[in-house]
């Protein structure tokens, strides 16, 4: 078994001293550059668009979307599933890889966790945006009431409420707990108001033995608690579809298929976010090519699972001999939404096969481009599942077309800005790399060998 020193040397060969870590990681927390402000302004404007679009929908009715009969779910549910999917890799990287002691997680897990929390915050809005009467959405929560009315526990939508709220609670707690020692480091470096703020949220962390002891225990317990959620949450989300009898939804493969897809899209999103962040904040030393290589491999694995799922769905539809099922999948490939399906197959099945090549895995621009493709592909995957299945169902007379409206597009774009808004704040307010954990794996501070 490799020692901590060896692991650190493997992953972070350019980091020399522990002080350097503090300095480098905490640097973004000082003065923001113009670039940051520009991006932040853009994100804030997008958040404005998001709430303006939603407000319009609340005032006028959900008719401002392009939804109809038969396509009762569209961009909103697509985006919900997309963001829940994005949220998955964070916990995967921080919890599962922590438990498995994967050597490459320390540098990226903070970003991944932050992404998880913000993605769930984004995802959680979509069911609210999507329902016809959001002011009654609390009826989905089982609470004692004078009318003895309970939600229908048979409905996957109720399971969803539990799954998503649980996931948010656990991942937010996990995220916060992991940052406590680093917040203390930030506190020590900060002055003025910031210092007060960090003092409060670092919960009086002093780095004593006993604190480290409890921290370690709590962290491992939470990691263990979060691990099953990685699998369960997206399984539950997949049952929103699989429990329905809609051809194209009603399949037993959905849970594993969705979980793999979620990890796939989540890892891709981590790459998309870390590439610019690393560049802008000068974290090249901490997030190295080895990390990217590992993430690319995870991407490749999950993309193969996802592609296998696509192919097996098509195969089973054909093999079943069921007229309606066959028609649904034929329509998926060659019907009016063929373009969405082929975008999905290309982006998720074809493009990632380039990751078999080490040269591609080691090229950061290539990985960045591929990760964008995967993000697009995974959004379209959900669009294909939701829309192409609904628009071509059992009753031919009721077949119909769905065309997303400008409001839906505004909310979709706005949701990225909402996510970006929080993420940008994160980069400014919290240490983007886990300082304490990183130090654990770095070699002990030794004097540099003199060259002879």
């Amino acid at each position, binding site marked *: 078994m490799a020692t901590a020193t060896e692991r650190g040397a493997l992953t972070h060969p350019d980091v020399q001293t522990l002080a350097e870590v503090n300095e480098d990681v905490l640097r973004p927390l000082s003065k923001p550059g113009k670039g940051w402000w520009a991006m932040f302004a853009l994100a804030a404007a997008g958040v404005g668009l998001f709430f303006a679009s939603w407000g319009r929908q609340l005032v*006028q*009715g*959900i*008719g401002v*979307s*392009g*939804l*109809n*009969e*038969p*396509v*009762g*779910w569209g961009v909103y549910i697509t985006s919900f599933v997309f963001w829940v999917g994005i949220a998955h890799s964070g916990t995967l990287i921080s919890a599962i890889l922590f438990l498995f002691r994967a050597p490459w997680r320390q540098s990226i897990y903070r970003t991944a966790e932050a992404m998880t929390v913000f993605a769930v915050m984004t995802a959680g809005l979509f*069911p609210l945006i*999507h*329902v*016809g*009467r959001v002011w*009654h*959405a609390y*009826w*989905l929560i089982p609470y004692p009431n004078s009318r003895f*009315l*309970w*939600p*229908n526990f*048979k*409905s*996957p*939508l*109720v399971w969803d*409420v539990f799954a998503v709220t649980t996931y948010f609670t656990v991942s937010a707690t996990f995220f916060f707990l992991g940052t406590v020692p680093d917040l203390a480091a930030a506190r020590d470096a900060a002055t003025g108001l910031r210092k007060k703020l960090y003092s409060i949220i670092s919960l009086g962390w002093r780095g004593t033995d006993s604190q480290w002891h409890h921290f370690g225990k709590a962290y491992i317990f939470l990691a263990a608690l979060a691990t099953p959620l990685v699998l369960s949450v997206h399984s539950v989300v997949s049952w*929103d579809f699989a*429990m*329905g*009898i*809609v051809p194209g939804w009603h399949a037993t493969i959905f849970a594993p298929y969705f979980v793999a897809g979620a990890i796939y899209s989540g890892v891709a999103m981590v790459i998309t976010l870390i590439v610019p962040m690393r560049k802008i904040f000068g974290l090249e030393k901490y997030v190295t090519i080895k990390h990217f290589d590992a993430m690319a491999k995870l991407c490749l694995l999950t993309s193969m699972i996802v592609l296998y799922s696509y192919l097996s769905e098509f195969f089973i539809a054909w093999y079943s001999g*069921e*007229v*309606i099922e066959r*028609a649904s999948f034929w329509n998926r490939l060659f019907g009016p939404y063929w373009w969405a399906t082929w975008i999905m197959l290309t982006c998720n099945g074809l493009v990632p096969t380039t990751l078999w090549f080490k040269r591609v895995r080691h090229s950061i621009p290539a990985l960045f481009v591929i990760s964008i493709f995967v993000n697009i592909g995974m959004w379209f995957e959900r669009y294909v599942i939701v829309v192409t299945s*609904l628009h071509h*169902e*059992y*009753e*031919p*007379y*009721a*077949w*119909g*077309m*769905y*065309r997303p409206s400008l409001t839906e597009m505004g909310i979709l774009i706005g949701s990225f800005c909402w996510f970006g808004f929080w993420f940008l704040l994160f980069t400014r307010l919290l240490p983007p790399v886990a300082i304490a954990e990183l130090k654990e794996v770095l070699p002990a501070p030794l004097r540099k060998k003199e060259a002879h």
Partner: protein
Amino acid sequence: MTDGIKRRDFLKVLGVTGAGATLTACSTGNAERLLPYVTADESITPGVATWYTSVCQGCSVGCGVWVKTREGRVIKLEGNPHHPVSNGALCSKGHATLQHLYNPDRYAGPMVREGGALRQISWDEAEAMLAERIQGAAGNVLYIGRHTGPTMSRLLDQFTNAVGGRHVEYDAVSDAPLREATRIAFGADELPRYNMDQARFIISFGNDFIDGDAPLSWQRDFAKMSAVDDHGSKGRFVYAGPRLSTTGQNADEWIPINPGSEAALALGMASVIAEGSDDGPYASVLAAYGPGAAAQAAGISEDQVRELAERFAEGPSLALGPSAGAHHRNATAAHLAALILNHVAGSFGRTIHVGGGLQTAARPYSDMEAAIRAMAGGQVGVVMVRGTNPAYSLPEGSGFRDAFAGVGFKVSFASAPDETSAMADLILPDRHWLESWGDSAPRTGLMALQQPAMQPVPHFDAKQTGDVLLSVAGRLGNDLGAATFFEYLKAGHQSSYDGSMGPFEDAWRQALKTGVVEHGEAELGGAPDLRAPDTAITFDAPALDGDGDLTLLVHPSPRFGAGEFSNAPWMLELPDPVSKITWHSWLEIHPDAAEARGLREGDIVTVASPHGQVTVPVWVYPGIRPDAVALGMGGGHTDFGRWANNNGVNAMTLLPAVAEQPSGAFVTLATKVSVTPTGDHRRLAKVSGSDVQAGREITPAIALSSLGHGGEEGIPPEEGLKELQGGGGFVPVPADGGEPQAFPLEGSRYGKYADSENRARWAMAIDLDKCTGCSACVTACQAENNVPWVGEQQVMMGREMHWMRIERYYEHVDATQAGHLDIRHLPMLCQHCNNAPCEPVCPVFATYHTPEGVNAQIYNRCVGTRYCANNCPYKVRVFNWYRYTDAIPDPMNWQWNPDVTVRDNGVMEKCSFCMQRVREAENRVALEKRGSIPNDGEVIMACQQSCPAEAIVWGNIRDPNSRISQVVHSERTYRVLNEAINTQPAVNYLKKVTFHEVASGEHA
């Protein structure tokens, strides 16, 4: 409790102060509107409907109706089962007359045009003005109006005689050619009476009696004729015409003959049947038009003519001549030929009768032509128009607009704006027929009374035209015998009363109660002798104007008539029974003709005739000849109200103003047109997602020859019934094929469902062999259940709200067989599945299963996740995307049924099995202490009530003696998609029965 305030006291104080606070918070602004009945009207019980009988004046047919009123407002019409014209049915347009009553565009009161603008005046001023003008016209008064009953006609005669002038009756849609042909053939000035139910073979030469403007009793008789009977036999219906109308779509066989060749084909058939033995006055005609000539004229084979003739001769059979949509220049000849065919085949006295004195109100165009000439010639001083809208319904070539504009003083009695009243100097808005008195005499010996069912809608200061005429006559010093039209009407009936029903007052009350009085039926003649024609008749195909390559077929719309219903949103949003298009106009074109021009559905074309041109999108339809195009009436209004204006195109633009000779009917099949693409395209507001069943058992059919062989067809009756009786929201099917006796499952007997076996289990059956797709049920449902309309844009987005829809599928049968286009209609509504996919997915129990087996929807519990709609395989759930009901203007919301919740934004809705009707009956049963389940037939669904074909049966399927239990006991019974997904619907369908073989699988 000894100290402090007691709980009871506290509540008292709270109650008093609370009430005080509420009282002081009351606004006094609208207090006068809130007054309750100070002295309660003993005939009105709040919450209980009061019913009146009347006669529908929506078109000239005159169907008897029952008018449902609640708290003084008319909310629904239903067919009067005692009235022989409607036999209890009511068409879509009949329902939509309610939207004329509450039309927000109605005139607020009498108006005078001053400098181009209208100014409201008092009735006194208005009548004085009219009297003065009539006096000044020196006997040159012209009244143009639709026939609205014998008493009104008599009053008009009296009035025009008194003031000097004449009155012309005119209706855009008429059956004058049939009337004229009957006169020529038999010397009787009446329409023949048909007994379709007696026939075993009917051939329609372009007669579209299902598309409107025909008595609904015909449809009922037709259903009896064409539906398979207890002995497993059914009558055959052949449609010979260039386009499949709704009527044509119901034919067992379609012979797409050349437009205008009806006479030749009928005579050809007649000559085959007569075999030269006929020595009547038409022997020479029959000799001249042999089967060869007929085949050539119609564009079919001689064998086909002979075969048709042979089948027709087997009898009892009936031939019908062309109706208004196929009136060409020789339409009378076509009717005469059909009468000859009927005569030769011995149908008279069996399926068709003369001597019944059947009248219709519709009058021909030729009278109108004369009136236009008189106006243009300056012979008219005052012109009055009522109940008709010639400025819209006559082509420009008629000269009506110019002639009318030239008249010195123009009066319109239109109750709502129309193109003619837009030109009038004085507008004296008539009351709606539901606010006024009248009568109708559909045939000798039959009288029906039209009575006001409510106080006039207070938004509009309207006055019945009869009252206006009497008052104006009085001002001119002419006493017409009564002060009001009601007195005039009653006096008229009193003077002609024969005393057969006791004192007149009793008879009058009885007549008002039943809505119809039969003074004994006229003796129906047997087989009358044919007379030689007394006027020139040519049986050849008519000449057509223009040198375009496509024949233009202009037909009255099943939804708009000739345009009278174009401002009724229910009609605009009702999918056309043929094209399934809502709101706008479209041009029907054959796929081959479209392909030759590079046209696809929705491409916008210019249609040009020698008389005008219109620009309209095309809809590709295999049910029309490749050398013809069709355009419905009713579009392109300019001054007809907010919904009608600038919607679609007016087909009349393309037509010449020609009166058919000798009947004088307006000619609709007159011209050829050219069709040129404009290059533009639009999405049609069409509701059908597919024209084919795509290999699914949505509307399977069964061949007549396969009936009675039992076997695999249908569900085994015993087991099927048990399944249906299961109810309770649990799965009653044994997965392992076990014993069906296990129903209902043990697990279904808990809680609310514990005694469900002792309750009713509501179910429905729809006989697809009877359903014609006429869509009366759709509008009936809309009227009953406060279903809003959503508008053209929303329909284009796929958001129509109808709880019931008629699905239409094409089955392309082998072209070598008869009727190569088999069109299936399927009324689709909530199937109330026992095993409903919508129920488990709702997170808040907004949809659940009642112990009576109904799939209930609780609107105010609905959060609007729409999962139920996604999971409904039948797609019968509709969602309130906006506050559609808020868009309904006052007073149209007066029509709302107070027993049905008006749904809010963001909730799901669907068919409730008219639960309000069930509850109403259950309350009555409880009050009368008759147990808990209403008798069979005591509850009638709104759709079921209106259905002219009686295709819908509804009732308690747990009662083995109920009609529904009997009906589902058929080898034709099936349930849509049940085999595929085991939803266990409570709605059963009875397969359509075809004469051609139904291939299993593909055409299943």
